[in-house]
């Protein structure tokens, strides 16, 4: 680090991302609480373990290949592009940059910020499939969505050099599409093959509500997800950078925060817009769901997700309205799809993440029509068609299609879904009864010991 200003900037930036990582951990805690709260008592431990083990599996695979994909794939054989081995070289798992290295103080922190997004993508899928998927099957999906497909979409549409940004003018500052639409689409592909839980639909096809085991755990879970989402927003920004470092079309010497595309925004803007879109989502969801507590809370999340594509540039009132409109569409769409296709999305993840992400991308195309997608020359500006194509790529091409195809293979091999008998008796049956038996045995032993003393 040459020069005190450079040193200070590096130290500030590495600490900034490090703090976002700690905050984002709360997203995973929230997802775990939400899933366990939504599952029935007979499946608690299995549900929790299924989500917790996403952490190590996605982490190691993101180290082995996920991070390299982000740097090597921005122009992956699209419009004459290829794999960029030069850019990827410093981010291979055997690179000295990916280790304890006094010449590189930031790669690990930056890697971790992206990794936490990977956990989120996998965790979104995990929620939809509770109480009937085999853990082994889910963990394959977790690796694929967390360390392959979402990071390909990030390279394409969430990278200053991504082909979608250059050619389509794709704009998705806080990941409406690159995390939420893809993960929702992927979850839809999986549940379409996996099928609903026993009892979800009556014999005439009418859907039944499967109430959460513990509503309070769900509530705390979703509030923790809100909290972690703050960290996520901050992690999507470059906190401070000079125009010389950006090396684009920006003139003058004013340092700025930027979005992932290195286009200017402010922490103030995203704070306004995060809260206003949360509020718009909560208010609209309360009205449209007639005060249903869980749809209202999820609506807050859906509001933020819908507005996220453009929350670096929206006016706060726009963020509020976009969040509210998104929630109404998503709510209606969720029930229509459930009735029409008999799909069991146990926590509403396809709707809250997938549909919100798609709707948010399309709305951003209209509201930000003509805005520069990048500080670099020659990039397409933001436009409705580019955003719609982008939404299709995120939800269907990189989300739904691989989720459906891999699930089909797993289903054909008989390794996707748990046996019906196990689903009825509960995935924790053996553990629960082993626990009850051990408890009875030790209580009996204690009583016998007490009887001998008296």
């Amino acid at each position, binding site marked *: 680090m*040459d020069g005190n200003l450079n040193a200070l900037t590096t130290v500030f930036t590495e600490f900034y991302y490090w703090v976002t990582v700690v905050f984002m951990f709360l997203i995973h805690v929230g997802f775990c609480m939400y899933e366990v709260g939504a599952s*029935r*008592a*007979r499946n608690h431990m299995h549900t929790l373990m299924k989500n917790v083990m996403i952490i190590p*599996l996605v982490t*190691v*695979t993101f*180290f*082995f290949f996920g991070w390299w994909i982000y740097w090597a794939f921005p122009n992956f054989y699209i419009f004459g592009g290829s794999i960029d081995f030069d850019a990827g070289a410093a981010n291979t*798992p*055997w*690179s*000295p940059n990916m*280790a*304890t*290295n*006094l*010449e590189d103080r930031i790669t690990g922190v930056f890697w971790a910020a992206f990794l936490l997004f990977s956990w989120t993508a996998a965790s979104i899928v995990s929620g939809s499939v509770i109480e009937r998927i*085999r*853990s*082994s099957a889910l*963990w*394959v999906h977790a690796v694929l969505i967390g360390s392959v497909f979402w990071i390909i979409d990030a390279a394409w549409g969430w990278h200053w050099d991504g082909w979608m940004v250059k050619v389509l003018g794709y704009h998705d500052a806080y990941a409406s599409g690159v995390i939420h639409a893809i993960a929702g689409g992927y979850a839809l592909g999986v549940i379409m093959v996996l099928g609903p839980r026993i009892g979800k639909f009556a014999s005439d096809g009418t859907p039944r509500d499967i109430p959460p*085991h513990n509503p309070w755990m769900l509530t705390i879970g979703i509030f923790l997800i809100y909290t972690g989402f703050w960290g996520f927003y901050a992690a999507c920004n470059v906190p401070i950078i000079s125009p010389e470092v950006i090396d684009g079309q920006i003139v003058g010497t004013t340092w700025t925060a930027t979005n992932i595309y290195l286009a200017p925004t402010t922490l103030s803007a995203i704070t306004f817009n995060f809260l206003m879109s949360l509020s718009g989502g909560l208010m609209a969801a309360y009205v449209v769901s007639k005060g249903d507590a869980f749809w209202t809370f999820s609506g807050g999340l859906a509001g933020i997700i819908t507005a996220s594509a453009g929350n670096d540039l929206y006016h706060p009132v726009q963020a509020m309205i976009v969040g509210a409109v998104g929630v109404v569409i998503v709510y209606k769409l969720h029930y229509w799809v459930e009735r029409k296709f008999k799909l069991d999305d146990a926590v509403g993840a396809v709707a809250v993440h997938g549909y919100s992400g798609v709707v948010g991308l399309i709305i951003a195309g209209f509201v930000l029509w003509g805005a520069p997608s990048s500080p670099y020359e020659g990039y397409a500006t933001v436009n409705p068609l580019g955003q719609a194509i982008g939404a299709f790529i995120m939800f269907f091409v990189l989300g739904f299609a691989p989720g459906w195809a891999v699930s089909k293979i797993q289903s054909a091999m008989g*390794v996707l879904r*748990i*046996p019906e*008998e*196990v689903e*009825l*008796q*509960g995935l924790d*049956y*053996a553990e*629960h*009864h082993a626990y009850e038996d051990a408890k009875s045995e030790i209580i009996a032993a204690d009583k016998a010991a007490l009887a001998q003393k008296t």
Partner: protein
Amino acid sequence: MSIGYDSWAVDLAEVGPVYPMQGWEIPMVIVGVIFWIGWHRIQFVREGEHLEKAKKIGDAEKVAKTLERY
């Protein structure tokens, strides 16, 4: 195993990697990948056996009680 330095009496501007076994990164990654794939294999086999066994262990009365617990 050396990290390449036996004293910190150095100019930090000239110090790069400081982990042991430098030059062995690719073999270390191969070991890591084997550990990861091996884990999936062990878990997959165990879960299959467990579910097969679990299909038969359910005592009807206990299962009914479990369903009631919600």
